[in-house]
């Protein structure tokens, strides 16, 4: 029977994949043709969703984007046997957009049926755990440390060092917490992993548990991801039934239990201590550090808190070894980064590459330039707390240290492009507004500063033309306020809001009613 693949990823669904799948099934029935429909994850070429594939002897071939109205024509053209059709794209693996990538964390994404455990295992799944179960905790931690993996949530803290702290913290109970509160605009790689390859996250968390001696894991999932919730719960259920989770994982005598907890729409809960408060059933107020969560985390116990991508990268490291992973990348940024192309781009989607590619390659070679066809004027990298970069910085390589040199962050690898119609003063105002909406309220610079920031941005907009003397004063106020927030906030929400604000002001002064020279000084 011929296998036909129609993705079940949220983005594919948002563009009508369910209707396309139903149309294919109905048309096949009508023509008395037997097909096997598989709802796979997405390959990440989101501008081409719904991205339909057909299995052939030479490999899977793609037809995209397929809407229900295209389906009868596809059957007429005998697409099940690679018949000629305007939507035919050839062998999926040969598409240059995919071929140019280095997919390690995303090795299986889009290829397998996300909830099929058999499919996962057939595609190298659970090899990492098998190795881990034959190693001591300290040895597993050493592999993770040697791989050079750094926290992919944004803070880029070495994962192995965090694990080592938890490993060496004596306690009856320890926890693994997965931060799946992916709230940054322009990011969706966590969502893709959870929806399109959930077992890789489950395996990564299980390995973390085995390594540090934790028997309970929680996935703190944002409430805005209803599809991910369903997929994760189904996968956890199947993994438990098959003995990959539970009291005796793979007959090793070791226990690891996993549960998904729904967040409730607070951006600040992506901050690890606020997340822990929320998991404990409280308001998501940021905690003072120390104590570190690795020493006193969830319910006061030693806790590993890692992002989805960090944990989902663990299985391949344990499978292929630390050196294999560390051989990718540049400088102190080892391995690969799943980059998410978003905003005003012609070809948005998931690009996993070794560190070191430039923004320009991503925006133009992969992204295909702006969707509107107008020049790309500004790019925000790393979510709502990331800096805005002008065209002159597009040659910066994606590397944690290279980005800090230009006072920017890589964050979670989201890239949001804006064309020339963007008003950067408005974006700066929005950054303050977002901070005001999402502030947990514990520290003054964030709670009050964000609201004052919105007010002063409104004054700047008003005084731009008519009142130059008060205008200069307001600009200075934004700088002073940013300085206070930067240095006085308890966590990154208040502490990094000045990144989008000041980068907008410094790189695009004309939008603030200033000429370039006034700022360059």
């Amino acid at each position: 029977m011929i296998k036909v693949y129609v993705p079940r990823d949220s983005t594919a669904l948002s563009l009508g994949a369910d209707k396309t799948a139903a149309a294919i099934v109905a048309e096949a029935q009508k023509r008395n043709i037997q097909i096997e429909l598989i709802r796979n994850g997405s390959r990440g070429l989101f501008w081409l969703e719904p991205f339909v594939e057909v299995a052939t002897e030479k490999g899977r071939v793609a037809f995209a984007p397929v809407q229900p109205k295209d389906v009868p024509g596809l059957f007429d053209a005998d697409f099940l046997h690679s018949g000629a059709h305007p939507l035919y794209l050839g062998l999926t693996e040969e598409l240059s957009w995919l071929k140019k990538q280095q997919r390690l964390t995303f090795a299986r994404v889009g290829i397998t049926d996300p909830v099929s455990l058999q499919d996962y295992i057939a595609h190298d799944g659970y090899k990492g755990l098998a190795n881990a179960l034959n190693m001591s905790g300290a040895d597993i931690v050493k592999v993770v440390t040697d791989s050079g993996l750094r926290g992919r949530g944004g803070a880029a803290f070495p994962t192995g060092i965090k694990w080592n702290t938890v490993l060496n913290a004596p306690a009856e109970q320890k926890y693994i917490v997965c931060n799946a509160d992916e709230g940054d605009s322009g990011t969706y790689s966590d969502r893709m992993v959870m929806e399109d390859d959930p077992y890789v996250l489950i395996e990564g968390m299980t390995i973390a548990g085995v390594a540090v001696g934790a028997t309970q894991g929680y996935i703190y999932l944002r409430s805005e991801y209803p599809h991910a919730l369903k997929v994760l719960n189904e996968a956890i259920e199947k993994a438990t039934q098959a003995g990959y989770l539970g009291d005796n994982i793979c007959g090793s005598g070791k226990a690891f239990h996993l549960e998904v907890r729904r967040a409730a729409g607070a951006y600040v809960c992506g901050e690890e201590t606020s997340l822990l408060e929320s998991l404990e059933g409280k308001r998501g107020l940021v905690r003072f550090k120390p104590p570190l969560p690795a020493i006193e985390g969830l319910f006061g116990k030693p806790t590993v808190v890692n992002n989805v991508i960090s944990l989902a990268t663990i299985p391949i490291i344990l499978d292929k070894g630390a050196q294999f992973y560390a051989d990718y990348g540049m400088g102190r940024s080892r391995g690969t980064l799943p980059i998410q192309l978003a905003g005003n781009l012609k070809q948005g989607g998931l690009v996993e590459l070794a560190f070191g590619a430039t923004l320009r390659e991503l925006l133009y070679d992969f992204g295909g330039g702006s969707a509107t066809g107008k020049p790309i004027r500004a790019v925000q990298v790393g979510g709502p707390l990331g800096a805005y970069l002008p065209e002159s910085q597009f040659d910066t390589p994606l590397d944690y240290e290279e980005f800090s040199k230009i006072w920017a962050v890589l964050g979670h690898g989201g890239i949001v492009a804006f064309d020339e119609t963007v008003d950067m003063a408005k974006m700066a105002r929005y950054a303050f507004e977002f901070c005001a909406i999402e502030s947990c309220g514990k520290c003054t610079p964030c709670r009050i500063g964000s609201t004052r920031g919105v007010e002063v941005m409104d004054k700047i907009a008003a005084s731009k033309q008519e009142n130059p003397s008060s205008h200069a004063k307001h600009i200075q106020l934004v700088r002073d306020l940013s300085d206070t927030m930067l240095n006085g906030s308890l966590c990154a929400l208040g502490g990094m809001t000045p990144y989008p604000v000041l980068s907008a002001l410094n790189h695009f002064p004309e939008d603030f009613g200033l000429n370039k020279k006034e700022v360059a000084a």
Partner: protein
Amino acid sequence: MTTVLTSQENARIDACIEAHRKMPGALLPVLHAIQNDLGYVPEEAYPQIAHALALSVAEVHGVVTFYHHFRRHPVGKHVLQICRAESCQAMGAEKLEAHVKSALGIDYHQTTADGAITLEPVYCLGNCACSPAVLMDEELYGRVDSQKIEAIIHEARVSA
């Protein structure tokens, strides 16, 4: 705003509490269960929840009001969330939200007079490669323009 809960609603709230009270950190799971069932978390339920979880009513109130997701009032039959985050702004979300507000005749956090649709802002739906995005109940849509949103709203209105 005080409403009196029916005995049936009270029983449903009790069932939600009972199903989750033993979980570690049970408050959020309990609140999610109640909202999934009733569509919101009634203030009148705070004492019940507080008592079952050995918390103060103030603590329950604090948690419900801290999180954007929890609603304190009944909502319309459908909830439409429009993404206001940067990626969607880059693709015209502001125009879209203005269009929806005027088409429905309501602002954010309000419900249409016929009780069909409640409008809410949201900050990222994880569909940023196909902005602008909206979520109608649990159905996600991408590359939404004014024409597409009209169809989405119409479909919701005619559905039961």
